[in-house]
């Protein structure tokens, strides 16, 4: 890890961002190629289903630390109006501490799950890909997400504006 925590965060954004972007691009191309190949050439791609599943899993969990870094998780913000800026900062830090602790606990459970899967030697049906490395990667990403929240306790970063700044170019889920 780089010496400066801000640099480490920016580095994380770049590396995971590039990974997530690439995975999503491949996921899209694979899905489209599968449909085209099946209907036009009558030749379904072998194991496309399994690769899609594993791509999705990796993509989502690589995106998780990014979502936490960007502070994008859905929260209710009624309480912000009742607090002073100082109180808000304190509450955010406490909540990030709590989130970090819980998420690290989750990472531990996912790691245990990965151990179980590794012990069974689970593989995918068609391509016989081992599943456990992907689940270990999941656990690792969840752990990084937890660390991102803990890092926010010490280095609160930019998301402490009094009013949430709304970026209209973002595609929200609604």
């Amino acid at each position, binding site marked *: 890890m780089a010496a400066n925590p801000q640099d480490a965060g920016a580095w994380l954004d770049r590396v995971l961002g590039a990974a997530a972007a690439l995975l999503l691009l491949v996921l899209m191309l694979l899905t489209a190629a599968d449909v085209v190949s099946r209907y036009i050439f009558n030749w379904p791609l072998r194991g496309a289903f399994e690769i899609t599943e594993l791509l999705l899993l990796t993509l989502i969990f690589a995106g*998780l630390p990014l979502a936490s870094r960007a502070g994008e998780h859905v929260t209710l913000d009624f309480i912000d109006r009742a607090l002073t800026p100082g109180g808000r900062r304190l509450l955010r830090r406490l909540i990030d501490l709590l989130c970090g602790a819980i998420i690290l606990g989750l990472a531990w459970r996912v790691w245990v799950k990965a151990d179980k899967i590794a012990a069974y030697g689970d593989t995918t049906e068609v391509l016989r890909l081992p599943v456990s490395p992907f689940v270990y990667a999941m656990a690792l990403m969840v752990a990084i997400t937890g660390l991102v929240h803990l890092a926010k306790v010490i280095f609160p970063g930019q998301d402490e504006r009094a009013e949430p700044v709304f970026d209209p170019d973002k595609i929200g889920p609604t």
Partner: protein
Amino acid sequence: MTEALVGLGLMLVLALLRVPIALAMGVMGFVGVAYLRDWNFAPAMAMVETKIYETGRNYTLSVVPLFILMGNLVTRAGMSQELFRAAYTFVGHLRGGLAMATVVACAGFGAICGSSIATAATMAKVAYPAMKGLGYSDRLSTGAIAGGGTLGILIPPSTLMVIYGVLTETNIGKLFAAGILPGIVATFLLCLAVQWTVLVDPASGPRGERSSWGERWRALKGVWAVLALFVVVMGGIYGGVFTATEGAGMGAFGALMFALARGTLSWRTLFDGLIESARTSAMLFAILTGALMFAEFVNYTTMPGDLKNLVTSLDLSPIMVVAAICAIYVILGTAMEELSMILLTVPIFFPLVVHLGFDPIWFGILIVVVVEIGLISPPVGMNLFVMNALLPHVPTRVLFRGVLPFMVADIVRLAILIAFPTISLWLPSLMR
């Protein structure tokens, strides 16, 4: 019942303290399941492991990032200008014509984009300057953009329908089909709201120029790509040629080709679009996982049964129950962020509605409509925030007043859709 209510209360307390909703629901699901097993944590931990793993490794859910990517790409491709232009040639010469063109163009954009916020934001950049130029009042123009923008989640594809479908295990393709006719009804009613506004204040929306049929034809040719994308994706899903997941992949790929062909996409914007879609998807998956954990707890309690008994004992007519639920949503939607509202309440209301014998697809459409109302209802409506961010010179007071006729139109539509379920259910009933 008591334990579920306590769990719900504690979860709300956590959420109100600004714990992300995903974690608040997950934690209460975990604690709740442990409590129900006399504080034996082993099954609760197993539940957590399984839910995280199963949500992550789920082929059907790849529909989520792919449709979000499609929306991100079409927004960046910038089709809004052509859509607005085409709608203008047909209705621009009428009183309030530009505002109606905005609504129709929003409907068109909604047919390739699953997000209301994105639809409103994209349209605002094109339609507001045009309306301003013709002397439209800010009230009417911002109201039409905010109101029209909500069509983004009703007309398929729709991210919200995907979330509802996943939460309730309802067929996403059928939900999409169900959104089409209500979308047309909605477009019509929003145009009526425009007419109402110009009837009261004729100066707010003067007439534009009449276009010749030649111009109309040329303008329509400018939007063929939007139509093609919609027909391939929705037609493919509707006709059973491919699943919703495959349709999402084709849609995202088509949107990419389309943006590349128009030359509006740089590597940078493509990269940003991909990352943003990945982040939004991760956020949604976190919430889905949390909601599924919480639902696991609620379903083990007596609450679902108790609620059903309560409704039976009160001898309410089923349709009144649904109307009451919708009324609760409309009221909650004024103050609450809509996605959290749906995620927190659907696990509780959904079993009840199904028990009363209603179609989950129909209820899904009602949910989308109440969210649309919430998006434009002051003081907390996301589409109003979009307007505020893009057009900071328009006072909030003007925004709030301008959107009122469109809210009324939406509430009328909600009543129509409750009274006539066929509007929602006819198209999906024809699917295989």
